[in-house]
């Protein structure tokens, strides 16, 4: 005789809903509470390291969208390329991260920020100075294990941290 059919099933269901009263809600109240994102997030933009970049344009070749434009000139006395123009139209960028993986000198990073929406398309085109790292524009740990190690771990729903959620 299966007792599930005689109200036990409903009683089990009731106990489940009652236990949910003590459970931490999944909802995050976004503007006030922010979850820590994944350390390897491929955020809203690219970060460029001006010092390390040699202007080799490997990133531009690897880009499936042709988003990255590089113009270089040779400076004879220093015997290296000088980057005249480094321009990324993030409106076309699909955030695949191939450019970051392709860079042989670790000069390009994905962004850690995710709240970088703009009001105009023209603001999405990032040129040399706009691509540098700053306080809001931190590099993410995507394909960069050293940076990943320095970032805080992601908040998971498993953690049950009431302060974060």
């Amino acid at each position, binding site marked *: 005789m299966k007792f599930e*059919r*005689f*109200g036990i099933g*409903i009683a089990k*269901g*009731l106990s*489940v*809903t*009652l236990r*949910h*009263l003590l*459970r*931490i*809600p*999944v*909802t995050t*109240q976004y503007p006030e509470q922010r979850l820590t994102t994944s350390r390897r997030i491929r955020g809203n933009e690219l970060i460029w390291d001006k010092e390390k970049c040699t202007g080799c344009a490997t990133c531009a070749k690897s880009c499936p969208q042709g988003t990255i434009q590089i113009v270089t000139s040779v400076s004879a006395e220093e015997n290296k390329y000088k980057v005249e123009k480094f321009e990324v139209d993030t409106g076309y960028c699909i955030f695949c991260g191939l450019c970051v993986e392709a860079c042989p000198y670790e000069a390009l990073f994905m962004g850690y920020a995710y709240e970088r929406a703009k009001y105009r398309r023209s603001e999405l085109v990032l040129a040399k100075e706009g691509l540098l790292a700053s306080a809001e524009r931190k590099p993410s740990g995507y394909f960069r294990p050293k940076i990943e190690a320095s970032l805080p771990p992601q908040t998971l729903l498993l953690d049950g941290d009431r302060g974060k959620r």
Partner: protein
Amino acid sequence: MAVLPADWPGGFWVHWGVFVVIIFVFVLAMVMGFIWFERRALGIMQARLGPNRAGPFGLLQPVADVIKLLTKEDIVPAKGDKWVHWLAPVVAVAPMLMIFAVVPFQGGASMADLNIGILYIVAVSSISVLGVFMAGWASNNKYSLLGAMRMVASVVSYEIPVVLSIIGVVLLAGSLSMQQIVMAQDIPFILLQPLGFLLFFIGACAEINRAPFDLLEADSEIVAGFNTEYSGMKWGLLFLAEYGEALAISAIVTTLFLSGWRGPVLPPWLWFLIKVGAVFFVIVWIRATVPRVRIDQLMALAWKFLFPLALLNLLITAVEILVFPAVSLWVLVPINIAIMIVLVILWSRLFKLGWGRVEV
């Protein structure tokens, strides 16, 4: 426990005026509180938060909702029946308010201690069905009409087990007056009438169209049911009627089965409010748990399960009272609980839903 004179406080008209105010304030405040409570409790049970923006803990959310409803445009369907469309919310709300005339808030504290109180409730509460059906009819909309017809079908069916299980209580109490029923409950009738309580609670949930019996507004099937074509405060009144009936059912369950205002230490009116809140919590809890039933399951549950069990319950109660009047009521408590379990299990084995799937 002494019952206060029925015309407390003061003379007839003072009593009348005071209780009209009390009932209006009680119903409106409790309904707004219940709406808030239901949304919060449902939210937490579903791992959400529920409304928490307006005021502390979102307590002002119902106020904001009412302001929104008051400022919304009132739309009457072009080919609808205008007068009936206007009248329907009133017809739905007024009986709901009339129920509270006999609800005892504490000893002697009810608007009218009718000696046929529970009969009056059964009679009055069925009028609001008419309001809902008028709303469905006047909207000139197939979804509204379908929802209203489902409502009428379910209420007419569930009225029978509900009334039959009320008779069990009346047999035990020996009176139809709500005050007397409470005074008779030295043992809460939920212990003496466990089966009757179960049947009454299921039937009452179906009558006020709470989940899992909320077929009249099954939004996945018929948009919003009878109030599809309503907007603004007329919709608000229909909503008020719905929650007011939930409040009324909570109050009636408290009075009939949970010994009303009686309880130790705390003041009686507070006991009454606590018990009403607890019953409403159970209603919300069931809503969060059980999925909506189909229309054939709804009808089958009423006629094949609740109705015969209610008859048996009535028979057993009558036998207990007539044949064993000398037996202490405490002896009957375990016997009745055992009878309930055995009957529910036996009847569940007999209970079948049609013969397999029926294609129409």
